[in-house]
């Protein structure tokens, strides 16, 4: 009996030891100013919080551990600085990563890049083609050669409360996702080539209550062939301010995109509602083609689009290059407040129910010479005083999948 008891105890001990998973609790890792962020990340475990103390750091950091949070102590004074010599502030090649409360600036390509399908040169491994769960909040992205914040082939993301300025292509860019399952909200983008761009970014993507003013163009959704998952479709653009996008002090990689508030280029099934677009020198809200992609079934409702296009364009425009008229293709305009449109009585002829198929005569834009743009690295970098995140030291839980937000209460924003 005694023997049986001893054997049983030993067995229980062995089994429990062998099946015990070595799971470490998430921990805080502090990185001193100027130290290597990469080294800290390489030592971290999934779920850890990496706090960067106030100071300046090098970039070209690759994050390949899941569920990390990288957070600056002070949003405006924790600075990842590429000095126009490094390529990217952060490349995130893992799921569930947060970047928060810091500044990324002066990188030749991107401030922050979430990259599905990243392939490492050193470890010879690749991430899945679609990166899952990401979050950027309370971040400043300044003076980068392409994008301030870029989510490529990624889903279940949040980009919120960021400030992007003087990025040559776009302040925020989401590309090649279908569905994107992403929220872009509460962001300010100014002095960029574009405030926001979504190329072949489709479905469950909600762009709401942002301020994309004072760029060369505000919001640009397009279908294109360079990225996969075309055409672009099914995005909600609601409650945004996209005014005065005639900034000739902003850099650009797409010079012709100048003087537009919101542009849907060859996209389908997008909902553009309750946005305010004013004083854009070419068009407040434009629906156009892009190469072979014709736009269809886009609805424009309740927008306030006034004082645009004088004297070159319109408050509302539906135009196909090289054609004097357009077919309805299911595109519609309803309850918008505007005074000029490329199609006469656009809301009467293109209502959201019962519209005739067309064709409808559409006036072209007048010839307009777009101004030159400065280079992104010639623009001075400002010291900022943007709001910090609360609870700096709090270790967050895992990022979850994105649910459809309730946008029903979002109205037209007031002017700046």
């Amino acid at each position, binding site marked *: 009996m005694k023997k049986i008891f001893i054997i049983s105890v030993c067995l229980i001990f062995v089994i429990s030891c062998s099946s015990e998973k070595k799971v470490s609790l998430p921990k805080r890792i502090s990185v001193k100013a100027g130290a290597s962020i990469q080294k800290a990340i390489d030592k971290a475990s999934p779920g850890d919080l990496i706090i960067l103390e106030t100071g300046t750091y090098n970039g070209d950091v690759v994050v390949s551990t899941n569920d990390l949070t990288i957070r600056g102590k002070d949003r405006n004074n924790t600075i990842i600085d590429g000095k126009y010599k490094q*390529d*990217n502030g952060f490349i995130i090649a893992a799921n569930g990563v947060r970047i928060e409360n810091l500044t990324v600036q002066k990188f*030749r*390509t991107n401030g922050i890049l979430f*990259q599905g399908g*990243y*392939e*490492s*040169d050193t470890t010879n491994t690749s991430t899945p083609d679609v990166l899952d769960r990401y979050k950027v909040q309370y971040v400043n992205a300044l003076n980068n*050669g*392409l994008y301030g914040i870029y989510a*490529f082939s990624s889903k279940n993301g949040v980009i919120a409360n960021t400030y992007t300025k003087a990025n*040559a*292509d776009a302040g925020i860019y989401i*590309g090649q996702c279908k569905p994107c399952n992403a929220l872009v909200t509460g962001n300010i983008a100014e002095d960029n080539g574009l405030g926001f761009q979504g190329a072949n970014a489709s479905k469950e993507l909600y762009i709401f209550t942002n301020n994309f003013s004072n760029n060369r163009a505000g919001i640009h959704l397009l279908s294109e062939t*360079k*990225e*996969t998952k075309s055409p672009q479709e099914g995005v909600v653009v609601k409650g945004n301010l996209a005014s005065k996008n005639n900034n000739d002090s902003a850099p*650009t*990689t797409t010079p012709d995109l100048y003087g537009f508030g919101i542009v849907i280029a060859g996209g389908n099934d997008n909902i553009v509602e309750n946005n305010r677009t004013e004083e854009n020198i070419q068009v407040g809200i434009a629906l156009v083609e892009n190469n072979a992609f014709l736009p269809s079934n886009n609805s424009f409702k309740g927008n306030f689009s006034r004082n645009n296009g004088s004297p070159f364009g319109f408050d509302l425009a539906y135009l196909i290059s090289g054609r004097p008229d357009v077919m309805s293709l299911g595109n519609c305009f309803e309850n918008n407040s505007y005074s000029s449109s490329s199609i006469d009585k656009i809301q009467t002829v293109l209502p959201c129910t019962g519209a005739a198929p067309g064709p409808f005569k559409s006036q072209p834009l007048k010839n307009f010479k777009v101004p030159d*743009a400065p*280079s992104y690295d010639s623009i001075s970098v400002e010291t900022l005083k943007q709001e910090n995140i609360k609870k700096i030291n709090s270790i967050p839980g895992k990022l979850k999948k994105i649910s459809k937000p309730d946008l029903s209460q979002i109205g037209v924003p007031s002017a700046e």
Partner: protein
Amino acid sequence: MQNKKVSFIFLIIVLITLFGCSTQKSEKLPRNVNSKQAQIFSQILRNNLSRETTKFQVTALSTKGANFASEGYVNWKNGLVSNSVSLNGSGRADLNAISNKDLVYENYFGLDTLMKKNNLTPKKWVSRTIDKSIYGIDSISQFILSLVSTTAENPLLLKQDGAQYLGQRKINGDVTSMFRKKGGDIVYYTKNDSTLLGVRVTLKGFTTPMLITFSSSANITIEVPNENDVYSIDDVSKFYFQNRPKF
């Protein structure tokens, strides 16, 4: 018997060694760029914008063009190229030019004598509009000027679009990586910091591919000639093309 055994063992060792070497995997080229290579490739034209005046040399990559040589300087920021061409292997410049995107200022060996014969006060340069379809020197200068961009390319899309890595090659002692866009016919030779050291291209109007190499910055200023030293092509058209080298 002992010798036979030794010979047999030696033979086995040799066979194993040969077999082992033959199964060693060598890199199969060309192949698609990886992320890091795409990043390097994406920056090269943007990088040229920040370079000082750069020296270049053009050589034909076949015996057909054995007597041809061209060299000069380019300043991508200012959009100017100065170029001289030698066509007969003598080493003497047969044709000289300073070009921007619209105009070229030319002279050639013996032009001043021709001007005097035609009762014109000799001036150093003759200006005409660029025409790549007619003039080889324009084809070269305009191609070199095109190797610049105010913006970098998107490396993710370069990679996804099938940009290729072709291996490595030394250019003037520097190791470079060779890249080409999918379906493209230009090969770019670049250092890892995106400094472009050469291109291989078949230019419009040429049947032979050319290698154009770029070397370290020179302390040279390229300037558009003073208008007092320039005849327009209309002023000299009666005789200019009689002796102008056909290039």
